[in-house]
């Protein structure tokens, strides 16, 4: 059918970011832990294609390593959300209407009722600021999202006759959930995961912007942005580059999510009926 511009643009954007982040694991142009005060605030060019920051670190390397922390935080947070939310959602759907279902859904509502940023701050106050706590704070709020999506999709599958057939074959709820329900909502979960991933990147940026995310010397986009803000006149690129990195990554992931939804949506795939 049509070339899917969303999918392609999103794939290229997020692919590039992912690739750069992966590359930073083995190679960066300059060590970001080594400060060089004499080299501070160098304009782009020469050994520093994007210049250096106020502590003389190479901006390109900082952005690459920053991508890594953003992605790691968001990815693990999504992992937590899926790891806990999907089984909960499956369980709730399998036991639909029972107290278990009710309990899971009420817990979801309760988590949703807490303002996320406030919880992040509280967690940080209890455990101290770190990337781990950012992950925890973002991850907790991913759980109800996945639980809800999973339950909703699973509920509609449970009304289908192939589930009846599996019950006839004597399969239990757990087995049916794993064998018949989960594989058929995987598409939906992938789409949701990309969306949550992009939200996670934004959330991580916000948290590290207020100093609650990854801690120095680990670079993170949000903190780079926060630290450079006041230099917007003297060295605008310091604040603009990390901002741009966030925007492009989130944009890429959102486009990818949209593209995947279009590509995987069973409603669009289903033939004549």
């Amino acid at each position, binding site marked *: 059918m049509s070339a899917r511009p969303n999918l392609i643009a999103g794939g290229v954007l997020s692919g590039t970011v992912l690739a750069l982040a992966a590359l930073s694991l083995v190679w960066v142009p300059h060590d970001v832990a080594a400060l060089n005060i004499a080299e501070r605030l160098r304009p782009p060019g020469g050994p520093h294609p994007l210049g250096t920051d106020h502590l003389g670190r190479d901006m390109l390397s900082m952005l690459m390593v920053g991508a890594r922390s953003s992605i790691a935080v968001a990815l693990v947070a999504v992992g937590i959300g899926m790891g806990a939310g999907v089984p909960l959602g499956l369980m709730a759907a399998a036991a639909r*209407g029972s107290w278990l279902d*009710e309990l899971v859904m009420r817990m979801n509502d309760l988590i949703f009722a807490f303002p996320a940023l406030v919880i992040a701050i509280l967690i940080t106050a209890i455990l101290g600021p770190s990337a781990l706590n950012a992950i925890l704070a973002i991850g907790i709020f991913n759980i109800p999202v996945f639980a809800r999506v999973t339950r909703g999709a699973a509920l509609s599958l449970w*009304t*289908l*006759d*192939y589930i*009846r*057939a*599996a*019950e*006839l*074959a*004597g*399969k239990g709820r757990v087995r049916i959930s794993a*064998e*018949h329900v989960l*594989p*058929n909502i995987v598409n939906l979960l992938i789409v949701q995961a990309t969306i949550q991933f992009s939200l996670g990147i934004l959330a991580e940026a916000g948290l590290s912007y207020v100093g609650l995310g990854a801690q120095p010397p680990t670079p993170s986009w949000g903190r780079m942005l926060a630290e450079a803000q006041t230099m917007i006149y003297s060295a605008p690129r310091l604040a603009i580059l990390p901002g741009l990195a966030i925007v492009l990554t989130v944009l890429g992931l959102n486009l990818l999510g949209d593209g995947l939804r279009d590509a995987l949506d069973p409603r669009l795939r289903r*033939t*004549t*009926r």
Partner: protein
Amino acid sequence: MPVLRQVSLGIGRREIVGLAGESGSGKSMTALALMRLLPEGARAEGRIRLDGRDLMDLSERQMCRRRGRDLGMIFQEPMTALNPVQRIGDQVAETLIVHGEATRAEARRAAARLLHRVGLPPERFPPGRFPHELSGGQRQRVCIAMAIALRPQLLIADEPTTALDVTTQARILDLLKALVAETGMGLLLITHDLAVISGLADRLAVMRAGEIVEEGPAATVLTARRHPYTSALVAASAHSPATVPPPPGPPLLEVRDAVRTYPGSRRGLIGRAPPQRAVDRVSFAIARGESLGLVGESGCGKSTLARAVLGLEPLQGGEIRLDGTAIRAGSPVPGQVRRRMNAVFQDPYGSFNPRHSVARLIAEPFHLTGRPADAAARIDETLLAVGLDPTDRTRFIHEFSGGQRQRIAIARALIARPDLIVLDEAVSALDVRVRAQILDLLADLRARFGLSYLFISHDLSVVRSITERVLVMKAGRIVEEGATEKVLHDPAHAYTKALLAAAPKLKEPD
């Protein structure tokens, strides 16, 4: 890709023209083309003349003025054809208001009158109701009221009764007939069910793959069947597989005083609606090798009973006995009992996990029995038995048509060699010709494997063709039971009589 090819049709005043054909033949497209409401991407060519004026020449704005005033249309699915958040009276009144035929207040009064006319008297069905407060048949009446509000010259009804059960269907068809007589409008009645048309239409057009293959006075078309496709359709509608007399056998399944109650639906955290008895002290038996029919209106509890028999739902009272092993209410059905029963469900699309291969789908019942050593051979054998090819085993379900899927469902039901197969509306979703093939297959399999069937359907003609004995169910209870021929020819219970009277019949050729 053309969907319709050179379709020509004429409809006179006060005339009812039937348009019949298999699913996907282009009937709906024809109707939508007439309304110029084709889905995005579709394009229509040719001429549509209404009272001499070519509708194709009109601008979209002019066309809007024609729709509803000169052309009315009702659709197949009454459950979704109405705006759920608007009162039915307002929806009917809207037809008058958008055409500037009445002020809001007048339109309201007119709507009330119209609703009364289509059988929704204001005392019982005030116009202030919302669609969800009405049954399917009642909603279809609202749609009809909406469509005839301005007495259009032509009413198009696209499968208006397919989603309704027989008694309701009969009433709606009567209403349409009366309206045609009363207002003098022409009616284009689209259906896949020849029997519906045979009792109603003056003329009949038969459509196949976007072409009208035969057209003429309804009686002539149905009896003369000049075109082979028409005769194939008629034959399939009336199809009756050669039934084998049941070998006298001991009772296989006995159900005694089965009760299934649903807790009332939740109302918030604490409240519940009162419980509802979907199956109310039902008793019956099926002999080994016997085919037992179960008929009744939608919602009377047929499926619930079937699920209870299959052990998919707990019973609140009574007992089920399979080949002597008793299962009492409250206790789960043991595996050895359950493996001797299997089922085929109505929806050929929702019955299969789209991610599993045919072989895996069919082999699912082995979960209970343990996978036999010759599983692969058994799968091939079963595929052959239902008329599919063993090479199909690696394919996925989306590669099959509805009829083929139903064969796969039957294969799945057969593979563990059960004694009893429950068929819940197993052929209702199929086209007549495909349905005929499946019915033949079922009869054949029964003869070969000595199977027993519990055959559930709302379609009496199907039940007649494949069962020896029939149960009639109403509101959770069995109201009549007996040999199929006898019950269907000479019903004892008033409800059965009503059911029979409502069922449309295809006139036998002389």
